[in-house]
């Protein structure tokens, strides 16, 4: 087993083991992906504090805008969709740093690359775990933020749908940036600089869908475009992330 510099991870009984199990013991890529997903979820739940941080950030940023603009709900309603989405985007960005950091640190990522399993599949599994841990909770929190910004309750389903689908795309796009900046010290700002331009289409369509929902208009069209981006992301992002991870391990 590789040496584990992080004592907390070293104490985790499954650290590295699922990777070893997935590595070459006749496992199919689906089994390997499932193991990776399970491992990520298990390890994340051991650090519940860390899971809450992006959500807290989302809540704080959402609170900033009324304080900076006006307490009038009528005025806030005009910008609610945009504010919500920018906050979700930034919170999602913040959570990206956790995606590969620990695995790169303790050598698990290297094991994944050497395991003989398609690294793309494992990258997809990690990104799926990331979405379950950050994107989905953000989508579930979005109603609170939306209501606090004056959105009508009828708009909630549309808002939740847009954030849920949008964060899938964001996790995928973000995984590329996270993989590219592996091993770079203090890469937070660079990660943002790389990921934000690539995320702009998601922001545009997602905010538009939320906006239409808030005004009671049909929002299916931008939602479909958002879903298209997510599908494109599923096809291409794990590939790019795997390529970037391989480069970082060379």
């Amino acid at each position, binding site marked *: 087993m590789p040496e584990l510099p992080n004592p907390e991870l070293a104490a985790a009984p499954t650290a590295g083991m699922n990777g070893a199990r997935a590595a070459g013991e006749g496992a199919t890529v689906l089994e390997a992906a499932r193991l990776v997903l399970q491992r990520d979820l298990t390890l994340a739940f051991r650090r519940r504090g860390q899971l809450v941080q992006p959500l807290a950030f989302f809540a704080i940023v959402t609170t900033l805008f009324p304080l900076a603009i006006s307490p009038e709900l009528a005025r806030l309603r005009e910008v609610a969709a945009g504010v919500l989405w920018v906050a979700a985007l930034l919170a999602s960005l913040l959570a990206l740093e956790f995606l590969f950091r620990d695995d790169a640190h303790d050598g698990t990522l290297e094991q994944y690359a050497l395991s003989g399993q398609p690294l793309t599949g494992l990258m997809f599994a990690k990104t799926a775990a990331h979405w379950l841990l950050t994107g989905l909770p953000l989508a579930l929190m979005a109603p609170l933020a939306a209501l606090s910004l004056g959105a009508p309750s009828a708009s909630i389903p549309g808002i939740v749908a847009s954030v849920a689908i949008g964060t899938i795309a964001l996790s995928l796009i973000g995984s*590329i940036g996270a993989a*590219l900046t592996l091993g770079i010290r203090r890469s937070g700002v660079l990660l943002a*600089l*790389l990921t*934000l*331009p690539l995320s702009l*289409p998601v922001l545009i369509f997602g905010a538009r869908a939320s906006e239409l929902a808030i005004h009671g208009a049909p929002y299916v069209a931008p939602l479909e*475009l958002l879903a298209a981006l997510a599908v494109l992301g599923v096809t291409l992002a794990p590939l790019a992330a795997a390529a970037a991870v391989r*480069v*970082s391990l060379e």
Partner: protein
Amino acid sequence: MSWTWFHRLGSPPYIYRLAQRLTPWFAWPAGALIIAALYGGLVLAPPDYLQGDGFRIIYMHAPSAWMSLMVYTTMAVAAAVGLIWRIKVAHAVAASCAPVGASFTLAALVTGSLWGEPMWGTWWEWDPRLTSELILFFLYLGYMGLRGAIEDTQRADRTSAVLAVVGVVNVPIIHYSVSWWNSLHQAPSVMRLGKPALSTTMLAPLLMMLLGFTLFFVAVLLVRLRGEILNRERSASWIREALGT
């Protein structure tokens, strides 16, 4: 196709000497074309019906915008070639492109803004073209930032190559989404940054300028490329010869 030709293209000493020899063949024609286009655009072309003499900014704005996109595409193609076939020279080409592309993107933004103020009445307008140009600028900055943050040259080459390829896939998506976003909010009767109706005397300098800038880019690229190749080569023998040491 003879494979020796292809292999030679990947050979650093060959490319170095070729770049050295070819540079003047691009530099001088570029200079001549640009000067001729300047004369054509500033003196010979008549004022536009709607925009008066203000339209002449197009002779600076359009080539800059063209450069920003063409250079990015070149960079991405070179990066892809370097990534797929592991050709160092291709990575050197990509590295050479970035500063050129970024600086002309900035020029495109500034000239776009200068064109906008007299035409729209504002220094900035979130119209699809300018907004996409701005995002392209951020893509360049990200690429250069990533390169700069990785110390090992080979790793920097390959990592930024992945970014360049991902970016180039995104450029059409970004442009589409920005156009879509912009079309939702039709600006009131403010004149949009439409191309003025161009007669031949107005069009010819523009085409000359575009060609001139393209050749200019190749010339600058060839100069930068030599430096990038030198920085990636450790082998002494051909360098000694090439530098005349």
